[in-house]
């Protein structure tokens, strides 16, 4: 067991936990946190899995993860802007349940 594999598995775990939270919760903020957990898990898998295959430090995938982190923070910020408007308009922290879809 090397470091790369351990953190790949850590990423798999984070994705699983985050995915669970994303589906289970209805609170919009909690779902956004869950999304960030999936994101972090994905980033760990990206680097850990690639470096496990290559056997060396892989700068390309590390650069991609940097891009990914910035995109994720932008997504979180955009989500928060929308969620806050929703709180202000409706005073509710979740979306109404679908009746028919």
């Amino acid at each position: 067991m090397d470091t790369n594999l351990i953190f790949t598995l850590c990423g798999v775990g984070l994705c699983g936990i985050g995915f669970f939270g994303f589906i289970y919760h209805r609170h919009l903020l909690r779902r956004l946190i869950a999304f960030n957990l999936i994101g972090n898990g994905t980033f760990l898998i990206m680097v850990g899995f690639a470096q496990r295959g290559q056997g060396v430090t892989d700068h390309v995938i590390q650069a991609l993860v940097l891009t990914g982190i910035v995109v994720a923070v932008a997504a979180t910020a955009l989500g928060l802007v929308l969620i806050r408007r929703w709180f202000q308009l409706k005073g509710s922290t979740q979306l109404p349940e679908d009746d028919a879809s």
Partner: protein
Amino acid sequence: MNLLIDFTLLIGILAIALTCLISRSLFRSVVFFILLGLMLAIGWIRLGAPDIALAEAAIGAGITGVLLLDTLGHLKKTGNLENDEPAPGRKRLILAIVSSFTLVGLLLWAVFNQPTPAINIHLLVTEAMPESGVSHPITAVLLNFRSYDTLLEVGVLVLAVLVGLALQTDQQAQDSLPGLPNPLLHACLTLLIPAMLITSMYLLWAGADRPGGAFQAGAMLAAAFILLHISGIKLSSQVSHRMMQAGLLLGFGVFLAVATSSLIGGRPLLTYPEGGAGMLILLIELALTLSIGLILLSLFTIANSPPHHKDQGGDHGH
């Protein structure tokens, strides 16, 4: 010994993530989320990725954490924080458990059957490094080999601010966040802010040959801006609206201009002239740092500003 650290981190990270999700208190969830970011930063060091560690600590844990905490504060003020939410139903729980286990199972299957990659990009990177104009491979990938991705990524950041602005009213929205009139805080700030600015510039400069670069430096700059903002020194009231917009767009604009200038010389988009790569990359990074700092600050303040004209009264009512 190292393996022991890795396993401790593995268990710690997963335990914190789980606590973060199932904690009844939303405040605790956010705190655990920030803690998770810091643990991950250590993990990134173990993976040989100090650049990501810096970014994770500054952006992933820092900026995201501040944004989340600020939203919590807002919820508390409007009395929505401990809104007892009905627990999601059993059907949802079963669906969530089944899908999450399926995902984990699939991923484990994929991970343990990894073939040996046929292509090794890192060899190509090593080969091309002398022509890249910088000596830090990650900066070379971000701003030379795959600069197109980075250009679009800065576009994503600008776009996030743009959407925020489009949802705002046009009257200069005043900030609902009062400054903290704390003399001790101000005294600390006079020490902290210069230190943060210097760190930011150092990170920017270091990016050429060591871990660091525009994104980390920009996040540090944003942290300084946000601290100033919280303590009551509003950047947005110091400079005009138009100046602010120009600052937001500076990085993207300079990047795009440099990218397009190569077309005039008949070379593909984003190509740097021979020998000028290092200088141009530094120029782009400098502009990006300032813009990223301002963009992250704006994302923080946009979320803070009061809602549309319709219900402006409601927010200040209590």
